[in-house]
C-alpha cells in the first residue's frame, strides 16, 4: 500500500495544479452557472430564491429563442456539409501529388490563421445585401459576370439569412478538413492500393471500395470538431451582422444580449442549454476516447 502510494503520489502531484484549475474553471463554473439559472436573479441584485425551471420554461415558450435554436441548426448543417464536401474535394484533388501541392495547401489553409473578427470585416462587405445600382460585394460581382439572378439578401433573409454566415465559416475551415483528409489518404498503406490493383480494381473501384471506407473515422472526427465549433458560433455573427440583428440570432448571441440587460438567470440558462447541445455531440466522443485510454 505504502509502496503503491509512493509510486503514484508524485505523478498525481504534478498534474494536481492543472486538475484544480480545470476543476474550478470548468466543472465548478458549470455547477454554479446551472445553479444561477434556477434562481430569480433577473437583475443586477443577488438572487433571493430558487424558482426551479421557470426560466427554461420561459425560454422554450419564447419565439425568439426557438428561432435562434432553428438558426443554430441551419447554420450547423450548412457549415458541416460545406466544410466536409469542399475539404474532401480538395484533399482528393491533391491526394496523388500534384505540381505545386505545397502552394495549394498553403492557400487553402491560410484563412484558418485569421480571426473571425478580422475575416468578418471583409465578409460583411462581401455579403452586403444592397442590390441593383447600389450593389457592392458579391451582389455586384454577380452583376458584373452576368449572374444577376444570384443576387440575394444574404444574412438579412428572414429564414435562411443565417446560412450566409456559414459561408465565411466554410471559407475559414474547409482547409482544415482538407488537411485532415489529406493526412488520412496518405496514411493508408500502399499495400492496399497494390492489392486492389492486382485484383483488377478500376480507379473508381479502388476509391469506392478501398480508400473511402478507410477515411470514415477521419470524417467522423471532422464532423465532431467542426460540429462543436459550429454550435459555438458567435464571433462571426457579432462581426458581420452585429448583436441586434434578428435574422442571425443564435443562443450564443442571445446569451450576450441577456447578459448586457442584466438578466443573469436567463443568460445562465441559455449557456446551460448550449452546453447540453454540445454535450450530445461530445460526450459519446469522450466516452470512446476514455475506452481507448483504458485499453492502452
Amino acid at each position, binding site marked *: 500500500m505504502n509502496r503503491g502510494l509512493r509510486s503514484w503520489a508524485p505523478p498525481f502531484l504534478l498534474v494536481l495544479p492543472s486538475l484544480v484549475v480545470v476543476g474550478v474553471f470548468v466543472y465548478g463554473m458549470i455547477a454554479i452557472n446551472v445553479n444561477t439559472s434556477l434562481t430569480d436573479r433577473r437583475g443586477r441584485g443577488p438572487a433571493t430564491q430558487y424558482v426551479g425551471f421557470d426560466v427554461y420554461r420561459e425560454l422554450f415558450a419564447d419565439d425568439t429563442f426557438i428561432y435562434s435554436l432553428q438558426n443554430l441548426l441551419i447554420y450547423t448543417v450548412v457549415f458541416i456539409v460545406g466544410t466536409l464536401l469542399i475539404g474532401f474535394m480538395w484533399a482528393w484533388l491533391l491526394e496523388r501529388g500534384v505540381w505545386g501541392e505545397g502552394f495549394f495547401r498553403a492557400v487553402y489553409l491560410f484563412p484558418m490563421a485569421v480571426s473571425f473578427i478580422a475575416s468578418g470585416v471583409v465578409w460583411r462587405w462581401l455579403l452586403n445585401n444592397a442590390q441593383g445600382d447600389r450593389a457592392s460585394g458579391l451582389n455586384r460581382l454577380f452583376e458584373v459576370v452576368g449572374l444577376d439572378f444570384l443576387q440575394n439578401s444574404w444574412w438579412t433573409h428572414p429564414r435562411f439569412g443565417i446560412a450566409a454566415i456559414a459561408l465565411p465559416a466554410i471559407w475559414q475551415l474547409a482547409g482544415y478538413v482538407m488537411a485532415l483528409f489529406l493526412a488520412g489518404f496518405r496514411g493508408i498503406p500502399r499495400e492496399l492500393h497494390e492489392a486492389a490493383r492486382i485484383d483488377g480494381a478500376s480507379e473508381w473501384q479502388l476509391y469506392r471500395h478501398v480508400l473511402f471506407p478507410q477515411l470514415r473515422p477521419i470524417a467522423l*472526427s471532422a464532423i465532431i470538431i467542426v460540429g462543436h465549433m459550429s454550435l459555438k458560433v458567435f464571433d462571426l455573427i457579432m462581426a458581420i451582422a452585429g448583436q441586434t440583428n434578428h435574422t442571425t440570432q443564435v443562443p450564443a448571441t442571445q446569451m450576450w444580449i441577456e447578459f448586457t440587460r442584466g438578466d443573469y438567470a436567463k443568460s445562465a440558462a441559455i449557456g446551460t442549454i448550449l*452546453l447540453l447541445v454540445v454535450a450530445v455531440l461530445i460526450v459519446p466522443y469522450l466516452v470512446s476516447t476514455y475506452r481507448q485510454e483504458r485499453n492502452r
Partner: protein
Amino acid sequence: MSAPTTELTTPVEAAPPAHAPRRGWGIARITLLLFFVVVVLVPAYVLLVTSFKGLGDATPARAWLPPTEWSTAGWARAWELLLPSMGRTFAMVIPAAVISSFLGAMNGFVLARWRFPGADLVFTLLLFGMFIPYQAVMIPLIQLMQGLGVPSGVPSLIVLHVAYGIPITTLIFRNYYAGVPDELMEAARVDGAGMLRTFGSIVLPLSGPAFVVVLIWQFTSAWNDYLFALFFSNSRNGPVTIALNFLASGQLQDYSASMAGALIASVPTLVVYILLGRWFVGGLMAGSVKG
C-alpha cells in the same frame, strides 16, 4: 476516432510518387485547383484593394476595381487606432501561451509515461474542458475573477487563456510523449532517475517539436479570441479583436480603415503561419479548436 490526434507529429507528408495519371484529368484537376485558389483569395484581394482606397473611390460601381488613386490614409487611421491594443494583445498572448504550454507538458508527460491509477479518467475529464461552450461558464466566471481580484483586460485574459488552454496543451503533449521510445524511459529507470529527473533531463530536451506546435496553437487561439475579450475587457484595455470590431462596426463605415485594420490585426498570426506553417498544420491535426 483518434485519427486527428495521433497524426500530430506527422503533418501531411509529401505526396508519394504519382503514377502516370491520365492527361485530361491532370489538366482538369489543375484547373479546378487554380479556380479554388482564386475563390479563396477573393477576400484577401478585397481587403488589400479597399484598404488603399480614398473616400471618393468607395462607390458601389467601382467596388471590385483597384483604387483610382492609391491612398495610405486608411492604413494610417487604422494603425493609430489599433496600435495600443496590439501591444496589449502581445502582452496577453505570450505569457498565456508559455504558461499553458508548460502545464500541458507536465500533464502530458504524466498521462502518457508516468501514469497513476485513474489517469485515463483524469485525462478524459481534462479533455471535456476543450469542448465546452464558454457561455456555460461565463456568468460565474465573472464573479470568480472579481472575487480573486484579477483586474479586467490583460491580467484577466492571461488567467483565462491559461486555464482553458490546459486541455488542448495536455492533449498535444500527451500524444507527442506517447511516441517517445520505451527504451529511453527504461534507461532512465535503470539509472535510478526519479520522475522529475526523467522529465527534466530526458523528456523535456526532446520536447522541442511539441512545444513549437503548442505555442503556435495557443498564440493563435488567444490572439484571435473575441468571446473572452468581450466579457473581460473594454475598449480601453481590450485586445486587438475588440478594437478592430469597434473600428469596423462604427457608424462611419470607414471601409478603407477597417480593411486595413483587419490586415494589420492578422499580420502576427499570418507571419506565424507562413514561417511555421508545417507545424501549424500539426497543431490543426491536434484535435480541436478552442473557442
